């Protein structure tokens, strides 16, 4: 089997179509993960014990089961109880929910790394709880989180091919359909690898920039 450039150019529009969906899923999934992760992190810190415990259990449950299984449940099992979601929506929810549990852990670590003395100083200067979060705690907690969150973003990006299993027409799925109809696998699969590699490498470079900027903790 030899490499056929003509075939590469011929399938390129289809692959780019898939890449667009892959990037869309990544961005939407990241938003779901970032928001839901914050909800999980705050709920786990709640003084309402059943809420804190319930959230902990849910987070453990999601982390302890494979993403592929969760995607199948959301797309193929939920319709049995009347919840019918378009593939793209199911995929974004699935991957976003999964990575929300990881984001929650990063948030928790970042928030707990802010020393108790900072909360006390905020109270001694009579800031309200909201002012304490906005002006004292989050500005210190968030910057050290950024490299870790960005790493999860890349990990999530590389897991998006799983969405092909629930018929989302992302990059991998497009490549598979091209390959299945032409019986040529080398060009589509190589191109999928190249796309992921190039975007990952660029992202990794960006992350090391972020790490240089935020990774070191300011000394007190």
């Amino acid at each position, binding site marked *: 089997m030899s490499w056929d450039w003509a075939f590469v150019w011929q399938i390129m529009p289809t692959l780019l179509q898939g890449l667009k969906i892959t990037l869309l899923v990544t961005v939407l999934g990241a938003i779901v993960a970032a928001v839901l992760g914050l909800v999980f992190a705050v709920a786990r810190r709640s003084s309402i014990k059943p809420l804190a415990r319930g959230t902990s259990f849910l987070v453990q449950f999601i982390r302890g089961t494979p993403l592929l299984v969760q995607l199948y449940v959301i797309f193929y099992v939920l319709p049995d109880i009347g919840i019918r979601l378009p593939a793209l929506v199911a995929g974004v929810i699935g991957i976003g929910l999964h990575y929300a549990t990881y984001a929650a852990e990063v948030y928790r670590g970042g928030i707990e790394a802010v020393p108790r003395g900072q909360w006390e100083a905020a109270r001694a200067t009579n800031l309200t*709880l909201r002012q304490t979060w906005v002006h004292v705690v989050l500005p210190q907690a968030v910057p050290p989180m950024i490299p870790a969150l960005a790493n999860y973003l890349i990990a999530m990006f590389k897991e998006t091919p799983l969405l092909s299993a629930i018929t989302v027409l992302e990059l991998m799925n497009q490549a598979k359909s091209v390959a299945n109809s032409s019986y040529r696998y080398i060009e589509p699969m190589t191109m999928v690898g190249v796309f992921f590699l190039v975007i990952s490498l660029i992202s990794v470079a960006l992350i090391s920039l972020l790490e240089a900027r935020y990774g070191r903790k300011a000394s007190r």
Partner: protein
Amino acid sequence: MAEPIIRFDNIRKSFGTLTVLDGLSFDVMPGEKLALIGPSGSGKTTILRILMTLENISGGHIEVCGEQLYHMQKAGREVPADEAHLHKMRRHIGMVFQHFNLFPHKCVLDNITLAPILTKGEPRAEAEKRGMALLDMVGLADKARAMPSQLSGGQKQRVAIARALALQPRIMLFDEVTSALDPELVEEVLAVMKRLADETDMTMLLVTHEMGFAHEFADRVLFFDRGHIIEQGPPDRIFTSPTHERTQTFLRKIIAAGHRV
């Protein structure tokens, strides 16, 4: 005779099974400078933390500036204070911590102006003008734009004092403010506090192991042991002729450890 500005009435405080304060009562008069001394674990710091509402009480009543701190009236009944009440009461009180607790992501001047701007709605220009005056008073006007990480311990603590003063509290709490400092930096912080004590009519409560400074600073010294006031009086008497045996033992130990009295 004026009313006390702080009144502890039968205060109890436990951490789990450990009882730190067991029925503590004492009054502080407006403008009084109080030094709280005694062995570690005697409850001195807890008293300050309770006043700053960093720690809840387990029983009793505290009056600050004529109002209950941890209780309020609701429909003619006494109920535990809510956050709004505590917020209102905290305006009267400022605190300086052993470990400074400056906000590391804000420059020196912003550390000082943050709370006046947020909690009192002070215009930024006004807050900065007062902030600069306070920095001038603690001798750090040239550090206004420095970050806390660029300061020495003594400088940090002077900024922390200015930050607490910026809210113009009637009561200032100093919790072992020189314990975390290198010995050569202690003096600059004590000098600032001595000036405050001499030049203002703020009520001040000082928890310290610096007996020499307590002697100079305080109008009244309270010696604590295991959550009780064992002995109290003017510093000249407490430090030169303590009557209680436990006070004598404590002061002997402190002198033996190399502290000046």
